[in-house]
């Protein structure tokens, strides 16, 4: 189970070009753009899912691993995925809100 690379998704939403011109003075000079933030988040979620997956596979061959480790990893992966879905739906909502704007 692996998610598609986030770099393929993020630019399609057209978020990246927004920042520079208007808010050049107010933008936080952290060097971390919003799309970078999203990419990092998706990669972290993907890592958790991969971890849970490998732990479940390891448990299938060697059940001396405490069971709660496996269920904890699965639960953590699910919570991260849930968070990612929430972030996604807020973004899509905002995008649709803007695309419906009357000019």
């Amino acid at each position, binding site marked *: 189970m692996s998610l598609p690379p986030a770099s393929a998704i993020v630019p399609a939403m057209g978020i990246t070009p927004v920042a520079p011109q208007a808010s050049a003075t107010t933008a936080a000079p952290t060097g971390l753009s919003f799309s970078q933030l999203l990419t990092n988040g998706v990669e972290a979620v993907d890592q958790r899912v991969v971890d849970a997956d490998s732990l479940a596979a390891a448990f299938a061959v060697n059940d001396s691993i405490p069971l709660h*480790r496996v269920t904890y990893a699965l639960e953590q992966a699910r*919570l991260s995925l*849930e968070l990612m879905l929430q972030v996604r739906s*807020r973004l899509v909502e905002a995008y649709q809100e803007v695309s419906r704007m009357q000019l």
Partner: protein
Amino acid sequence: MQAMEISRTGLDVEWRRLEVIAQNLANANSTQGVDGKPYQAMRLVSGPKADFGNYLSASSGPLGVAVYGVEPEGLPARSIYEPGNPNADAKGFVSYPGIDHAAEMTMMVKTERVYEANIVAMNAARQMYLKALELGKRS
């Protein structure tokens, strides 16, 4: 997530504790170990988990619990007169480990309860996390 991580360390420690108790009970009738001495009842010692940064600054918050070690309980062995036993000494006495069965069972029940309590705490943290995701949700 940190609350869940703390509960997970609790689960780990109680799991280990149960393993030690199971080892004690399984060896209740062991007359001698590979080193020729009677088996010693063991006790798991645990305490708050801390990393080096914790000693320098108290800002990192609680980290849960950790196993400090497994130590022998130091109970004296029981000597039983059994001349027919192959492990008997010159006078016909066999050393059985000094395991307090009632104490082991009590400890086992306590371990079980603490394990359950950690699961409940973890579920509470999980519920709070999921509730927080609902904040500001439409429809």
